[in-house]
């Protein structure tokens, strides 16, 4: 495992996960469908997981991989709550387009 990392270089993993993270950020900023925004949040969190695992191998230290478990559990809980809110919006409104949420402003 370590030899592969040495051949490819840890920077490559860093670039890849930064790229994935940016895809997630732009997804949240540009898309207006709530499900796609949730997917973008997941992409952001998984980009970080990839980076944590790469660094964990790079440092030969297991704590990074343990952290990935925490962040996966947290991400699952977060999205469960988000979907619950989305369901109640769909019941009241009949649509999941974020642009419909315009009641609060001023």
């Amino acid at each position, binding site marked *: 495992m370590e030899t592969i990392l040495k051949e490819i270089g840890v920077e490559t993993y860093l670039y890849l996960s930064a790229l994935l993270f940016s895809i997630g950020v732009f997804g949240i900023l540009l898309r207006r469908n709530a499900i796609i925004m949730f997917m973008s949040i997941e992409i952001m969190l998984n980009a970080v997981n990839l*980076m944590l695992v790469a*660094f964990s191998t790079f440092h030969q230290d297991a704590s990074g991989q343990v952290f990935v478990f925490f962040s996966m559990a947290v991400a699952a809980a977060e999205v469960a709550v*988000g979907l619950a809110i989305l369901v109640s919006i769909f019941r009241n409104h009949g649509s999941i387009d974020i642009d419909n949420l315009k009641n609060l402003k001023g």
Partner: protein
Amino acid sequence: MNTLIAIAVLGVICLLAEIFNLRKAIVPVMIVGLLAILGMTMTDFGVTESHYNNMIVVNNFTVTFSSLFIVLTIFLVTLSHNFYQEQATKISDFISIKLFLLAGAVSMVSFGNLAMFFLGIEVLSIALYILAGSDRLNMKSNEAGMKYFLMGSFASGIILFGIALIYGAVGSFDMEMIYQASNSATTVDWFYIGVSMITVGMLFKIATVPFHFWAPDVYEGAPALTTATMSTLAKVTAMATFFKLNMAMNGNMKFEYELVIVIVSIASMTVGNIMALRQNNIKRMLAFSGISHAGFMVMALLNLENATGSLFYYTVAYGLAGIAAFTVILYACKGKDNEDIENFNGLGKRSPLMAMILTASLLSMAGIPIFSGFFAKFFILNSTLQAGWLILVIAGVINSMIAVYYYFRVISAMYTKEATEEAQKVPFEFYIVAVVAMGLNIAIGLFPSVLMDLF
């Protein structure tokens, strides 16, 4: 550490009480339990120790801030009984979520490892997403929950990216290793990118300009008691955590970082106050007032060595005034579908004590002497002056003068306008919470050294 376990156990007991049909006993039992935990936490004062491989540390910083969070939660739980009267079957859910939120808050200040910090911030945020969207038939509450969820998890993603970069640079999540790395000259550049990303994420959570845009919408839409939780407990927790992170993280990049904090602070104070002038909804107005208070609180970061006491004093003063103000808002806007300032017309005649409490808490937020808000601003500006940022002190003083204007709009509505409706009976708990919170606020205003000497 016992505090954290006891709070989590209390939350589970609250859920079990539902099964055994003890709903009526939940609020009193939880208050007694939280008071016991408060006593247990305070006995740890003066102790310095760490548990579970330095995952949780106990020192004076964590003990004092945890005690503050527990006190605020006691007030919020006491208010819950009346607020959730129409949803009495769900009261154990609401209260246990508040207790788990408190567990997240306590682990956010007592972390010794970034893993614990991340778990704490997520437990707190997820509990708040649920509470913000908890009035599920109300469109406004749904919208607030959704907006808070999207912005909050976006910020969590950024914080997580920062943590990963710091781990890459240091090779450990332990705060002591991070402290050493931040003071060494050979640290990789990733470290500073990571620190900046965590800073951005935390500024999101505290709601400072330019990351404040979610706060007014979410505060307005969420149920009033949740707004009280967000504007007192959550804001104070995020600020204490941000301060603790900064003590460990910014060794090498002094001046540039301070400049960013100064700009953020001036921008939050100014934007918060100017936007608050034209708000007609009191929850929205308090959201902007909270943004300007966040601007004051980040000033503590400029003097990391000496400002712990003044930050603690500020958070106590702000938290107590916020609880007192929201108690009156809950009373005056009960059964209404909005929280416009017109609802307060003639409150001085309808319920003199409640009007007096709201006046006192708004004066405390504005920074008028006798109330602790004045001394809070005084101490924090004093520590900023010690750090040599005169321009920030001038901006702070000008902003506290602007702030008086919009607080007085509410006060004049209460005393000079005619009442449009009959007086309602004030619930007993509201009296207790409002009087105790305001009494504590004035007490620490008269004897500031009680809190300042703790550090």
